[in-house]
């Protein structure tokens, strides 16, 4: 039984990372949003299966909550912003995709050779997967700094946060429920705030590239 749960964890942790990479790879915003949705769903499943395998009810709840929040609510929120903005289909990143993909292979490799070597990490099969969470986090961060569209920045931030959640699920079988709730609530609020902010920016300034917003640059 435990091995079955573990192979599920293994498979879906991988899916989380692959979806993040797809979001970096694709330029079509709709495709990016779909991959983020799938990404969240996979993350939820990881939490769920880990919770089942460790008989940890809090983690199961966290998994379900992640599933709903990150797999369904966030993508819908992003879609709303996308529909409001209309038109902007393609994102042109600051660094071309080929180079980004090569960096991505570094992002995958580095955590495995740094985090993967820490004591205790190799002690359980789950925590062995922690570098995947770090790779996801790095991919999210990379999207955040190389994309200048409002939506792609939100996507980058969500992927970043999901990487952190994945680390939390795998490292120590999640957090106590209270903290878990606080964390999800915070992330939800951040996304809602970002959405409101995005809408305000769109209505006040028009559909600008964030790259054009550099009045405050020193």
């Amino acid at each position: 039984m435990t091995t079955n749960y573990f192979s599920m964890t293994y498979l879906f942790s991988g899916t989380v990372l692959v979806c993040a990479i797809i979001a970096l790879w694709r330029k079509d915003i709709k495709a990016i949003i779909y991959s983020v949705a799938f990404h969240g769903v996979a993350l939820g499943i990881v939490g769920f299966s880990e919770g089942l395998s460790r008989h940890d009810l809090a983690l199961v709840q966290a998994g379900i909550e992640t599933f709903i929040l990150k797999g369904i609510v966030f993508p819908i929120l992003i879609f709303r912003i996308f529909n409001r903005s209309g038109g902007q289909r393609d994102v042109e990143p600051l660094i071309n995709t080929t180079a980004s993909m090569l960096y991505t292979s570094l992002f995958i490799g580095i955590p495995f050779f740094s985090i993967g070597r820490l004591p205790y990490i190799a002690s359980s099969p789950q925590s062995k997967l922690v570098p995947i969470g770090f790779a996801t986090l790095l991919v999210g961060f990379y999207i955040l700094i190389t994309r200048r569209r409002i939506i792609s920045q939100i996507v980058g931030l969500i992927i970043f946060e999901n990487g952190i959640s994945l680390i939390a699920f795998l490292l120590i079988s999640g957090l106590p429920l209270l903290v878990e709730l606080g964390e999800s609530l915070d992330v939800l609020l951040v996304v809602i705030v970002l959405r409101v902010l995005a809408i305000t920016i769109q209505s006040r300034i028009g559909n600008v590239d964030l790259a054009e917003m550099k009045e405050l640059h020193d």
Partner: protein
Amino acid sequence: MTVFSFTTSLLQLIFILACAPLLNGIMLKLKARAERRVGPPIFQTFFDLAKLFKKERLRSQNASIFSALAPVVLISSTVVVIIVSPILSTQELFKTSGDLFAIVFILLVGSLMIALLGLDPGTPFGGLGSSRAMTISSLSEPALLVSIVAISIQAKSTNLSTIVSANLSHPIWLVSPPHLLAIFALLIVIFAEAGRIPVDNPATHLELTMIYEAMILESSGEDLALIKLGEFMRFTLLLLIVANLFFPFGIDTQANWIQLILSSGISLIKLTILGSLVTLLEVTQAKLRLFRVPELLAGAFVLAVLAVISEFVA
């Protein structure tokens, strides 16, 4: 080398020699049907090749020995690989002859010769095609090598026969995430190497987009026939290798004569299914812009890296 393995190799060669033009014919027919055309008969490719063999061979005045050498090297490199790979049976002709890295590099010799052939007559299109092909190749080779590493980790060998037998005895390996990722990366690379959509369109002679066709534009007669045949054989071979890596069931492992015959039939079925899938892809997908091709291949590279790393985690 046993009688069985010798016969296997011979049978593999005959099988591919026969199936390669047939597969092309089937794919052309399917494509035509999908586009609501009648299309050529499925044996048309044989007639085309026969016609080309009969035609006069013209070579450019600037052409060097490469123009004569390239088609022969292409065919012979392909034949060598066909002989040593486990296509119908995992019995090897020589011990550890079916090493994946060796296979890749022998095939690369053929590609390299074609690129030289494109440069040889000194026409602008040929050079253009060669430079594009080499650009793509330089990106696809790393991905190919890394995905081979990923595939070989589980079996602890880079020998294709060993990998196939190991996968047969542990079918669960076939659906393990690293294996799937590696196969996916491998497929992308093979599409690039074989010059199929979405990387290259074999049916076009539009100067802006053609890659492979640009290199062989100056060839004619026997040369062209050999190149085309070599190309079909390579494509068939690559499809069969992927089929055996992903779904090895049906291949002979015990040096059993009946199984060998059966295996030919099963391979033909696998080939038809894969060919239909490729056709389906070609009909539904547009060719990528040339500048997007590196992105695709870089994606394949990342998948391959991911496959290797997840092998280490599991």
